[in-house]
């Protein structure tokens, strides 16, 4: 083989290594992994959260954060596990869904909700009734011999140390390297880092110390799902760089049986009702539902399946469809979002058009949400299937479109993200047009001198820029603006005005890597005194060795300036590490300098925690402030000199402190690039609530847009560190390659169509279609609207504005939906 990818994952921390938490000794102390299983429908008590000691529902539950993380003790890990704060919040929300009256208490250190949308998630958890967040170290006290409740000792700012009893204690355990990481390392001849995870290179986390061996996911270090997906796709792209010349050698073309025309046949519907293991069947009576299906009009066959998605079951669907002469298939199982393509494929295998398949969602819409109402749930499952059957009766065969794929890519933005992505695509043999609005490549990284881990950013940047310019397949356009964006997956046409004049670029894929901007603070006297600057400006001044900074005796940094507030309810993710980095650099240059960092939560997640500890050990003073009691920056006259003063509350002393300082550095928020809106319209992609570009799926498709053929990387997606940007850039390149390496793509058959006889050419549909998918064209009967099926995304808004109902969304037309409405109510 030509390359190896190690994706061996992680091992949850085992709290048994210390006796500190009573795990294994006390029955009602569980780890977060154990608890995750309890919450699951396929868990020990089939989705009921019960205590092992008495099989009763716990009512008062405590979570203890940082178990095995952020601890420099024997058996513990010094790093932050990066995911536990947010998974705990998820568990609290799910617990409250199981039992609205549950009392949930979280004992935590810093809350590190630094990921995209995590701050809102934290806020939502905090606002739930009966949920308390306590910032305190805790110790497990005793187990009550009779009730088996667990007592926890913790400290409060007002009442000192308190002891409280809980029915259950959940240990939010951290992430360890995979079991036998050393064995893996030996076997593949790679090195591990100090923490026992795979050692990457500073500019490429996918690269191990041995060429040809790559790593993705949590073996790189603690990481959550989106980052794992970035790195998986990124490792794929790097393997592609090595092995592109052999791409497709082992793949085989699928050949489907010829499609039978069933449009003239009486509908013969088959229903396959899935148990989903026990997910559905423990709530919904499957045999009863199957019998009911058989009574529905035009349903000629019904059966149950344990897992419809299992390979043998999917084959069974195809076989039965063929044998019983079915011409419509309903799979009553889960959400169509994930598995509809699979079942459509089964139907195709049976020689039927794939649009004759429908899914009735009796899991997410039924069994999962009606665990306590089994009989009603069975009735609801029947209702859902009856509605599906009514619609399925009217379904039509639809054709998908084969579109040729232009083999070139356009990358918008010439920062680290755009350049990394462009290089990886070019290395796999595709031409890339890289356009940058500035007159030079580099983006915001041009202002950054080093990373916290010590990478020389300027050296890396210059090296990358020269690689980009030297690559024969990359065409760079600087001083560029996009004047028009048209086209669709595989066939985009983008007009660009640049230093090279006007160009019309034809390309099959586009990558949005336009980066982000820095917030210009309006608070803390910024702009009124040149001793007050942003963290980035401080970094630049340190790099230039400015006297004012070098000779400072006191320096105060204030975190969370312009974000984690009402205007911008998100965490800018990089500022805590940036401040720690600046503090460490300054301590190196001038050990006598007194540095204060005023923070809300220090979010030095993952291995960055080690640098936070180092800064604290080097006497950088970290003082926490509450958003309700923000620090104050003042200029006061002392002996005729304007003295800079910072006033803040010291939470440990519980009183105001005043710091005379030479420099104030504000950790200014990272904000979406000014051109985000414009670019989003040009490429027909959407922005999220904070105006960051919105990926197709937060977890599962983090480098793609819902709009086919357009991809995303770098800080345009959300603030992130350079290494994370590089991960995502390679990740986007990987996804671009899956598109560009194909000769054709198919576009959905569920698009709008116009009945010309009904069209009165009013243009209502044209005005509401932001995709520009509908146009007038001349017919012998006059002007009529016509849909370009490739541009239509199937949202169907045009249908509701058409006075004559001439335009209809196929697969969801009026007749199909009316029949569903009628069936929903008709049988009550």
């Amino acid at each position, binding site marked *: 083989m030509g390359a190896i990818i190690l994706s061996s994952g992680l091992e949850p921390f085992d709290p048994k290594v210390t006796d500190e938490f009573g795990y294994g000794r006390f029955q009602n102390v569980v780890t977060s992994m154990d608890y995750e299983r309890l919450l699951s429908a396929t868990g020990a008590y089939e989705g009921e959260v019960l205590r092992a000691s008495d099989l009763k529902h716990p009512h008062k539950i405590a979570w203890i954060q940082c178990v095995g993380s952020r601890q420099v003790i024997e058996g513990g890990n010094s790093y932050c596990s990066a995911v536990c704060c947010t998974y705990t919040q998820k568990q609290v*929300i799910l617990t*409250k*869904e199981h039992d609205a009256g549950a009392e949930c208490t979280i004992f935590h250190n810093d809350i590190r909700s630094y990921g995209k949308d995590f701050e809102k998630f934290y806020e939502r958890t905090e606002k*739930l009734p009966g949920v308390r967040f306590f910032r305190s170290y805790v110790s497990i006290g005793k187990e009550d011999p009779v009730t088996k409740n667990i007592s926890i000792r913790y400290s409060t700012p007002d009442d000192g140390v308190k002891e409280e009893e809980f029915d259950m204690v959940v240990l939010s355990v951290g992430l360890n390297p995979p079991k036998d990481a050393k064995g893996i390392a030996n076997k593949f001849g790679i090195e591990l880092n100090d923490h026992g995870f795979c050692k990457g290179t500073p500019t490429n986390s996918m690269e191990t110390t041995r060429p040809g061996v790559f790593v993705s996911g949590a073996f790189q270090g603690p990481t959550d799902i989106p980052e794992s997906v970035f790195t998986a796709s990124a490792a794929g792209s790097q393997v592609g760089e090595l092995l592109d010349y052999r791409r497709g050698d082992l793949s085989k073309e699928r050949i489907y049986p010829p499609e039978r025309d069933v449009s003239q046949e009486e509908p013969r519907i088959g229903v396959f009702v899935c148990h989903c293991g026990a997910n559905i069947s423990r709530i919904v009576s499957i045999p009863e539902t199957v019998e009911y299906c058989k009574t529905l009009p035009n349903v000629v066959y019904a059966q149950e399946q344990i897992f419809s998605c299992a390979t043998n079951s999917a084959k069974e669907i195809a076989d039965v469809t063929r044998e019983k002469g079915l011409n419509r298939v309903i799979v009553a199982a889960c959400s169509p979002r994930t598995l509809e393509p699979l079942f459509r494929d089964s139907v195709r295998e049976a020689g039927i058009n794939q649009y004759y398949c429908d899914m009735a969602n009796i899991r997410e819409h039924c069994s999962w*949400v009606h665990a306590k109402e089994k009989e009603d749930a069975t009735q609801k499952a029947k209702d859902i299937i009856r509605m599906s059957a009514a619609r399925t009766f009217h379904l039509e065969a639809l054709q998908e479109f084969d579109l040729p794929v232009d083999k070139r890519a356009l990358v918008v933005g010439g920062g680290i993200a755009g350049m990394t992505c462009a290089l990886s695509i070019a290395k796999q043999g595709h031409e890339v047009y890289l356009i940058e609005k500035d007159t030079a490549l580099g983006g915001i990284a041009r202002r950054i001198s080093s990373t916290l881990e010590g990478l020389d950013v300027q050296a890396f940047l210059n090296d990358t820029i020269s690689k980009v310019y030297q690559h024969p397949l990359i065409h760079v356009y600087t001083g560029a603006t996009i004047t028009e964006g048209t086209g669709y997956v595989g066939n985009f046409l983008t007009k660009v005005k640049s230093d090279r004049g006007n160009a019309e670029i034809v390309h099959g894929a586009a990558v949005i890597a336009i980066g982000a901007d820095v917030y210009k603070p309006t608070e803390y006297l910024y702009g009124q005194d040149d001793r007050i600057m942003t963290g980035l400006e401080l970094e630049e001044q340190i790099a230039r060795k400015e006297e004012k900074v070098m000779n400072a005796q006191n320096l105060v940094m204030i975190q969370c300036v312009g974000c984690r507030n009402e205007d911008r309810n998100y965490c800018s993710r990089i500022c805590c590490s940036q401040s720690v980095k600046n503090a460490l650099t300054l301590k190196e240059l001038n050990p006598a300098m007194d540095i204060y960092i005023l923070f809300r939560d220090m979010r030095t997640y993952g291995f960055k925690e080690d640098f936070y500890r180092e800064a604290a050990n080097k006497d950088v003073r970290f003082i926490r402030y509450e958003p309700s009691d923000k620090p104050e920056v003042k200029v006061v006259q002392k002996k005729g000199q304007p003295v800079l003063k910072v006033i803040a509350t010291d939470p440990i002393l519980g009183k105001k402190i005043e710091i005379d300082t030479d420099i104030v550095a504000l950790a200014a928020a990272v904000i979406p690039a000014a051109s985000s809106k414009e670019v*989003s*319209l040009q490429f*027909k*992609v*959407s922005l*999220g*609530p904070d105006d960051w570009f*919105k990926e197709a799926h937060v977890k599962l498709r983090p480098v793609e847009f*819902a*709009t086919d053929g357009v991809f995303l990387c770098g800080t345009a997606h959300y603030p992130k560190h350079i290494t994370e940007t590089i991960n995502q850039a390679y990740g986007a390149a990987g996804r671009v390659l899956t598109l560009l390496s194909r000769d054709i793509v198919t576009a959905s058959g569920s698009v709008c169509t116009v009945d010309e006889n009904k069209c009165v050419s*009013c243009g*209502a549909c044209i005005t*509401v*279609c*932001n*995709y520009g998918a509908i146009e007038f064209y001349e017919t012998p009967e006059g002007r009529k609207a016509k849909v370009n099926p490739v541009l239509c*995304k*199937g*949202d*169907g*808004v045009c*249908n*509701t*504005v*058409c*006075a*004559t*109902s001439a335009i209809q*969304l196929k697969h*969801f037309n*009026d007749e199909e*939906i*009316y029949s569903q*409405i*009628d069936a*929903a*109510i*008709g049988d*009550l």
Partner: protein
Amino acid sequence: MCTGRVDLSYIIRGFSKGADGVFVVGCHLNECNYITHGNFHALSTALLCKKIFEYIGLNPERLMIKFMSGGEGILFTEVMNEFDKKVKELGPLGKVEGMDANTIKSKLEAVTKLIPYIRLVERERLRLPYKTKEEYETFFNSDEFNKLFNELIVEKLIISQITALLKEEPLSTSNIANALGLTPSEVSRHINTSSRHGLVRYDVEQKRYALA
């Protein structure tokens, strides 16, 4: 498919088939998965439908529209439970309204017939540039909207209701006035318009109006 695909006719169809309440739920406003922001269309449709309900004497609270994300299970449960309670309080369609099944059927039929026309009106006069739910609600409660509604929809709605009534049986002016809660002179005015348009004729023998 988007919430913007929820057609006025779907809502009316639900009520016509015997639903006592209809709940429309879509993604958060300004967080469109497409780029069309169709949920604003849905909001506009729902607010207009409520206005029509008010006019024909059905309780507008029977229709609810909310915006939430797929991750907000608790919110969905709360909202559903609340709406369920509300609809149960209102009872079967027609109960609090004091209308029998036939009257309701005929009124909803009248609305259904008017839907193509309403779409035209929406297109010509109710295209709204607003970006928030509050702006939409303010508009639909404004005098400006009331004026438009009265000018553009009410008369059509009355005529549509009259023809729906006459489809059942020929009626006198006072019969119609009673059924629609109008004065006989108002009814005469609309009947005149309708006969001019060739929709209604006077049956001299029965001394009643009938469909033309």
